[in-house]
């Protein structure tokens, strides 16, 4: 599955893209591939705060419902309302049109604890081999 350079990854299979004062968060190509076709996305309200490693929403496929954790802490400034009508965007475009939330990070240094593209690729390979 596809892993993009320049993004940071959490072991629970979310990505974060940090640009200026905004961080965009979604689930990885690997995660969407394992879930199968997404049928519903549960998103938070703008204005709420999210915490590193804690759930902020959920994605539901016909196989499973998974909580989505925030890779870093911050305040939600925008959510992808397009997912309400077209949850399949998570499958077709996990890193672009299928983004889930944008946040204002409260401790940007948390990014350093996340995985880089190479590390995440290796992590996925190992996880798949273990199953």
């Amino acid at each position, binding site marked *: 599955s596809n892993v993009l350079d320049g993004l940071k990854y959490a072991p629970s299979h979310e990505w974060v893209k940090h640009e200026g004062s905004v961080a965009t968060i979604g689930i990885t190509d690997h995660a969407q591939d394992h879930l199968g*076709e997404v*049928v*519903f996305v*549960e998103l938070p309200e703008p204005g709420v705060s999210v915490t590193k490693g804690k759930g902020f929403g959920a994605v*539901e*496929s*016909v*196989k*499973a*419902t998974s909580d989505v954790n925030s890779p870093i802490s911050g305040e939600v400034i925008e959510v992808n309302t397009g997912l309400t009508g077209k949850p399949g965007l998570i499958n077709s475009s996990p890193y672009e049109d299928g983004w889930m939330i944008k946040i204002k990070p409260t401790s940007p240094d948390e990014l350093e604890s996340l995985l880089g593209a190479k590390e995440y690729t290796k992590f996925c390979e190992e996880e798949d081999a273990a199953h």
Partner: protein
Amino acid sequence: ISVEALKPSDTFPRRHNSATPDEQTKMAESVGFDTLDSLVDATVPKSIRLKEMKFNKFDGGLTEGQMIEHMKDLASKNKVFKSFIGMGYYNTHVPPVILRNIMENPAWYTQYTPYQAEISQGRLESLLNFQTMITDLTGLPMSNASLLDEGTAAAEAMSMCNNIQKGKKKTFIIASNCHPQTIDICQTRADGFELKVVVKDLKDIDYKSGDVCGVLVQYPGTEGEVLDYGEFIKKAHANEVKVVMASDLLALTVLKPPGEFGADIVVGSAQRFGVPMGYGGPHAAFLATSQEYKRMMPGRIIGVSVDSSGKQALRMAMQTREQHIRRDKATSNICTAQALLANMAAMYAVYHGPEGLKAIAQRVHGLAGVFALGLKKLGLEVQDLGFFDTVKVKTSNAKAIADAAIKSEINLRVVDGNTITAAFDETTTLEDVDKLFKVFAGGKPVSFTAASLAPEFQNAIPSGLVRESPYLTHPIFNTYQTEHELLRYIHRLQSKDLSLCHSMIPLGSCTMKLNATTEMMPVTWPSFTDLHPFAPTEQAQGYQEMFNNLGDLLCTITGFDSFSLQPNAGAAGEYAGLMVIRAYHLSRGDHHRNVCIIPASAHGTNPASAAMVGMKIVTIGTDAKGNINIEELKKAAEKHKDNLSAFMVTYPSTHGVYEEGIDDICKIIHDNGGQVYMDGANMNAQVGLTSPGWIGADVCHLNLHKTFCIPHGGGGPGMGPIGVKKHLAPFLPSHPVVPTGGIPAPENPQPLGSISAAPWGSALILPISYTYIAMMGSQGLTDASKIAILNANYMAKRLESYYPVLFRGVNGTVAHEFIIDLRGFKNTAGIEPEDVAKRLMDYGFHGPTMSWPVAGTLMIEPTESESKAELDRFCDALISIRKEIAEVEKGNADVHNNVLKGAPHPPSLLMADAWTKPYSREYAAFPAAWLRGAKFWPTTGRVDNVYGDRNLVCTLLPASQAVEEQAAATA
């Protein structure tokens, strides 16, 4: 001739247990053992084997004829008085065409839950009718396909309010005009969610605390009053409080529906729509809500989707919210529904139609009205609020009137010393009302009759509350109103559904065994069906005798000391059992004990139930052989020893293995202060060989609809009584109207509250388990367990060279079920378990349990009542499918377009003018010789789950509106 040869010949065990002694030996030999007993000895660990099981009663087993005699004797001890008790239970005329063709029809009652949509379109349509009926009558757009009873439905609604408010508001208010059992269940349930339940008179309800998540009111109220809740709901919403309304379907045919008031959730029971009271159940409860909260709705939901050729097809929607996937994140443990009873209620509405239902409602209302008029003439004080079917009477001596009524074989509700209510129903007659006049006149002459008063009565429904909106406008509710038409509709739907009438349903962990006719017969006898659950127990002596006998038998079978028959399903039993453990710890001052250890391989309901009790869940893993990792368990138990509350375990394991060391596991938990909860899902492998009590468990639920022959009903009813050791017996549930407790009764009862709306749960289906046990006797039951093990091992042996068998015990045998591993085929042929399950339909079979407890596998449980011929036929089908997979592996068939991916093949596809598949129509339809003689045809192509869950439609579409148009509109 010998005397032995002159004894009754209609013995039962040989009809239930399939294998003859000769076959038993041959089959045992085929798996490498000389005898059945040596196979069983090698399979069940010695340390937990029972020497023998002996019953105090029925040890030798009754014959079928003797059983019917015994049940007739019990039936004669039940006295059916005319019930005016109400409180959520009303007598009803079960239309005979529905009684005989659904309730007494194995083609409807032996079906499994409709997970395999392509062979379940009949009951899926009927359940969609149910949902449509509920949404029409309540005025809310979303309904589920039934819950266990009205009380637990209210508790589920309470939990929804808590979730809607994200757990931030911790008070739930219940108006005192709700049924007492509804209030009690909510109070019991609130504890685990750390909710505070406040019961208040309607006029005293306020939301000043700012901590209220929801409020529950009843419409009409438990004492009959019909109130306008318009302002009440506005005020609640202004305070951001959600409103739950408990209501009555018959009343809603003439009353303004709750949805039009703005209620957020409506719950109630569909019992009086043609389902007998049955001394408490089973009945279908309902829960309806708005679009906004549909994804928070508990229970099973039927939705509209399309099949592989784009035609409309139905299936269960949003299944991933179910607790087996969400585990401890689940917000409800609801699994089993009341499908059979929901189907009966839906058919009742189909048969009567909107006009017929309204006529019944107006008749009931009229009888109540005439009664109220008459009482006023007799000088009694009648409540002057509007009412529908229940009249409240003030009197100086309620008890004396009720006693006089009993002398006339009439049951009234005594609310308190000065208050009586009388609830009228479809079966009440003018003569009944005249009898009531006599009772209330207390010996004085009555100068009028119900008939003479009739012209004086107009209406007692307040003008603003008269229903104006139409309902049940769909053609299905307006077409089948003659018996011929309904009979054919029922049979048309039935012919789309695979049931045990067709072939074995080898679902692992579900124990789809024989539901014998003799077991089913007493269930529809009037002396069992027509008793109100709150009738005086003196009138239910037949039932009470059966409860006592059954409690005693179940205690012997499980090695426990007392039983509660109240929980209505396995998950309800889990919840009840954990609540008992909680109450026990609390009674000892151990308020802090709240850790529950659960293996990762447990049924998903286990963590969901533990979460509902407010326990903290600690998950432990399994080793490579699928057994509980005892070292890890020991560490977890020791780490949490100060706070350990319970450990939940299924035995034999969910992996189909009798784990060695289960007795040590129980000891570890006890040594660290915990209690052992055993999940009884696999009890079919224990009966007579070992027992939960003997192994060391403290509490266990039994799925009577698995091990003890209650049929699955197409997705319910179930029954989940719990057994406990002596030290837990005082805490077993009771009931606010009819006090109950453990059977046999413990000393010093301290009941935890109530779990179900009725005192003995779904009492009407208990004769099924009772007769099964009594006819089998201790030997027949023990043989059943042995043959269940034999059948599983026989199949595993036949299949092992075609499919890897995943887990085995120390001697290489499996328990009563086993797992075959399909994971390899994903890489070699692109084949997944779903493809195999769908292809099995073309062979005339229901697939085994899919991808549980291990993803990518199938779990097969044959049960003792399938013959060797049937086991062979199923094995042959799987072996043939393995060859079809091999064709893909070899490159002879296309990975994406082959006979498995194309399965199932309905006639509409096979008979179409165009055929574009790379394999022949004939091979698609007739892959095995037996199909030429008789074939069960799937009625749709593979149903598209993704489409249905993305475009959620959960009611009948208007006839004119094809699903394709719906697709265009939402694309």
